[in-house]
């Protein structure tokens, strides 16, 4: 498939190698502090309308390519949920224009191109018209293995003048069961499935037959993978051909100068945004995550441990608007699937900036040029082990960038832009399915419906309920009926989880749950991505609470079939978490919370699996400051229980004759006054608490995995370790003794 021929330009195209051109561009940036040495936005100043028209043409092209790819793919993940994006890059791999969708990949796909250039791909294997190169190798540049990139060179008069790139999240990667590439059992790279390492997978816009065979022989859902491939090729070709039309219309010289000017403008725009909306200074938000593998069925010996993972995020904003993101004191990498190398951190940064700061400007590579990352060598965010597993790097990335949102929000608040304040949202803990499907075939992969889970509270309104995720801002849950076609289960419930949003003056968005019944299969594996068990991991702000840990419930060998036949009540949701409906209503083997984290035998027809996509979003402000009428509304929608309304919000009221709960303002006022007094009575000065805590730390009162986390993070001379010891008044060589060391 070739596009129409571009009109001949009088000027000879540049014949330098891509490597030379990339080096020259980087040298110009270092020398001038301007992208590609562009000191003046000449095209914009000379004819702003033409310049905007040009940008609009590029944007509409990449957005259109995403829609085309969506229609070619048949995967629920791509087609229903919108797990894809497309972009245009300079010849050197800097992003110019990006579509909607999973924008995390803006910079990461660019670094994939840069990797090929830096490793002389132009010489060997060579880069030709109609070639498509694929990558999902995180240590080259990717976020995690299911996100497959295709990069396609765009030629003009024999020279590469740009790249089109597309990414889709494939359903299944051929890894250890369940196989979606994110399994908690994939604790080493080799267990994640197929890795494409900057591989030429298509020539003359057609997939290579040997590549197709590899996919068919090594994945469980090859048809979906290969249709995603064709969607990416179609999207990239569409961009390539449209770029040729744009060059024909605007001229090559204009095209070549304008794509770079847009990036320099993106850089300036980002700096201006920081100066417009934030305050220079130092922002902090320690973030945490968990990996629970000890004694779990199927776990390899080297991974047989539970770990508390530490991400002490510090963001410094200097008066120029430049930012430094520092993770000094972060945990080391480990044998689990939460390792998040530079590519994934870069992805988290891209998508957070695109949503929180640079959303209506030029969201391109320029936005990140003035951001410095300190990712300590050998750590979970910069591993020094080449076979490190990264299947659910997103777990760590979401934890960190929820913290980043909180840091930004402090700045927005102090500056007066409360409508921009956004506390941490849901930290995703999806599930993967494997085994035999309802058609009798091997299956595997993830249900990524938490793409629409819960948003954090804003400074002026509640968080979004059962919608939004950091990694896909416009993500959809996908229709239940489509997921039922995909995997061997029926939805018997999908509803908002009451009391799941972090309590606050502005409530965090409530998350949702799905309750599945295994159907037409007696051999189903389901694993939760076990990232945030035992801890509350997202953040409220200014007195709002974060959401609680994620968990699942399982019911096996139950009487649900008999109850259905007898038309008796069956569970459709959790109900009261202290006495879940699957326990209240069903007879059988019921596993609740952490006990249901891993399964030791396949689930059979009629088994129930209940996934609660906690946490809801973080809350904003003291819950006792919440407008009582909003609490009333929450109760009427079943987003907040009457008990939580009383205990957390100090809301007094009662049900009227119609059974509707009505707030009593005067009673609430009195109740809240009593609750504030009770706080003062039960709390202690921080100084008194500090003295007791110091003794506790010094006398070995911190134990187990928590002590191990501290011991690991206090190793070596770095600022976080010094500050830790200084805060508690401990000696310069204080450390924790762990069971392993002993």
């Amino acid at each position, binding site marked *: 498939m070739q596009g129409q021929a571009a009109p001949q330009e009088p000027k000879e195209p540049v014949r330098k190698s891509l490597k030379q051109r990339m080096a020259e561009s980087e040298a110009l940036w270092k020398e001038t502090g301007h992208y590609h040495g562009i000191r003046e936005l000449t095209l914009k100043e000379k004819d702003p309308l033409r310049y905007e028209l040009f940008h609009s043409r590029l944007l509409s092209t990449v957005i259109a390519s995403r829609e085309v790819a969506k229609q070619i793919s048949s995967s629920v993940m791509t087609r229903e949920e919108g797990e894809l994006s497309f972009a245009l890059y300079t010849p050197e791999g800097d992003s110019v224009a990006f579509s909607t969708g999973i924008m995390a990949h803006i910079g990461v796909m660019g670094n994939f191109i840069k990797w090929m250039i830096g490793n002389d791909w132009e010489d060997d294997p060579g880069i030709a018209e109609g070639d498509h190169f694929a990558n999902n190798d995180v240590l080259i540049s990717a976020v995690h293995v299911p996100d497959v990139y295709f990069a396609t060179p765009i030629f003009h008069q024999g020279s590469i003048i740009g790249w089109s790139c597309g990414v889709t999240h494939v359903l299944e990667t051929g890894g250890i069961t369940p196989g979606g590439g994110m399994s908690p059992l994939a604790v080493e790279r080799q267990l994640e499935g197929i890795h494409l390492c900057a591989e030429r997978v298509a020539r003359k816009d057609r997939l290579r037959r040997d590549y197709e065979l590899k996919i068919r022989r090594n994945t469980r859902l090859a048809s979906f993978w290969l249709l995603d491939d064709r969607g990416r090729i179609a999207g990239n070709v569409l961009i390539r051909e449209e770029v040729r039309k744009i060059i024909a219309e605007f001229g090559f010289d204009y095209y070549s100068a304008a794509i770079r000017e847009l990036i320099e403008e993106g850089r300036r725009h980002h700096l201006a945004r920081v100066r417009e909306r934030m305050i*220079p*200074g*130092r922002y*902090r*938000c*320690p973030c945490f995550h968990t990996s629970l593998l000890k004694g779990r069925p199927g776990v390899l010996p080297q991974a047989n441990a539970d770990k508390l993972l530490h991400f002490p995020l510090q963001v410094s904003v*200097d008066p120029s608007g430049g930012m430094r993101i520092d993770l000094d004191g972060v945990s080391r990498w480990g044998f689990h699937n939460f390792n998040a190398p530079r590519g994934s951190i870069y992805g988290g940064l891209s998508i957070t900036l695109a949503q929180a700061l640079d959303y209506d400007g030029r969201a391109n590579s320029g936005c990140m040029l003035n951001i410095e990352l300190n990712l300590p060598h050998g750590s979970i965010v910069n591993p020094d082990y080449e076979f490190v597993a990264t299947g659910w790097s997103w777990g760590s990335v979401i934890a960190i960038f929820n913290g980043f949102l909180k840091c930004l929000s*402090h700045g927005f608040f*102090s500056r*007066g*832009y*409360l*409508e921009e304040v956004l506390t941490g949202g849901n930290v995703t803990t999806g599930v993967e399915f494997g085994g035999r499907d309802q058609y009798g075939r091997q299956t595997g992969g993830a249900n990524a419906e938490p793409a629409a889970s819960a948003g954090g509270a804003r400074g*002026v*309104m509640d968080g979004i309920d059962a919608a939004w995720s950091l990694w896909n801002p416009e993500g959809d849950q996908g229709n239940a009926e489509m997921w039922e076609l995909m995997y061997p289960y029926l939805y018997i419930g999908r509803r908002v989880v009451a009391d799941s949003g972090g309590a606050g003056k*502005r409530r965090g968005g409530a998350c949702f749950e799905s309750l599945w019944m295994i159907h037409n299969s007696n051999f189903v594996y389901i694993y939760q991505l076990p990232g945030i068990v*035992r*801890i*509350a991991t997202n953040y*409220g*702000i*200014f007195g709002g609470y*974060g959401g*609680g*840990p994620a*968990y699942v*419930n399982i019911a096996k060998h139950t009487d649900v079939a008999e109850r259905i036949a007898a038309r008796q009540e069956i569970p459709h949701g959790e109900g009261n*978490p*202290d006495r879940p409906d699957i326990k209240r209503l069903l007879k059988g083997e019921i596993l609740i*919370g952490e006990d249901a984290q891993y399964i030791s035998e396949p689930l059979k027809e009629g088994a129930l699996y209940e996934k609660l996509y906690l946490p809801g979003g973080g809350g904003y402000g*003291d819950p006792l*400051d919440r407008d009582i009428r909003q609490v009333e509304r929450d109760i009427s929608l079943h987003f907040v229980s009457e008990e939580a309304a009383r*205990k957390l919000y100090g809301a007094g009221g009662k049900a009227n004759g119609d059974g509707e709960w009505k707030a009593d303002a005067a009673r609430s006022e009195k109740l809240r006054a009593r609750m*504030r*007094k009770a*706080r*003062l009575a*039960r*709390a202690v000065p*921080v100084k008194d608490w500090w003295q007791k*805590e*110091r003794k506790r730390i010094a*006398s070995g*009162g*911190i134990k187990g*995995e928590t*002590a191990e*986390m501290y011991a690991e993070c206090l190793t070596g001379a770095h600022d976080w370790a010094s*500050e830790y010891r*200084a*805060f508690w*008044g*401990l*000696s310069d*060589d*204080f450390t924790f*003794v*762990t069971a392993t*060391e*002993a």
Partner: protein
Amino acid sequence: MDKYPPKEVLKDLIEGKLDWRRVKQIMSSPKDADRFEKYLALMQERVRWPEKILLPLGEHLYIVAKGKQRIVKCDCGCEFGDWRENWKLKALVYVRNTRQKLAEIYPGPRSPDPAWCEIREFYCPGCGTQLEVENVPPGYPVTFDFLPDIDGFYAQWLGKPLSEQVSAEDKSVKVTSQWARELSRQPTPKVARNARTSSAARAKRAG
């Protein structure tokens, strides 16, 4: 549009009184360049004390000029000391570090494990308002969420330098050092004496 919203609309926005359509309009419009001045004026009208607000720090907290000092102050009038010392160190704290205390916020299986995570609620000693919540492992230092460079902001971003320049240096350790000195009769610990493992570890070191 760079003056929109006017002060009265901004007040409604901050108080959460605008419907989504109007909030969206403000979010989607270019920002008002005079927002900080309007915001500061609104905040100043809200408090009953005379000190000039230099920077709002939280829903109820402000950095204010008091004489030649800059301090953190709650809207109830309670003062938390020098802005460069973490205000939380002068607050009251209630720590939810048992299953029972955690379950009051997170019922049933939604409750964190207190060996891995505790919830610290920081209250204003003056009015009992919950000013901030931390969810961290036991033994974690108190987080200094935001240390603004006030002079850099006023001088370089607003173009209105304050009369006296003060470096934005974290002074919190002065507070905890003082607390440590008060405990100084006790030796400074070098190794946590973990009851479960300490004897074995000491033997290992000795051997």
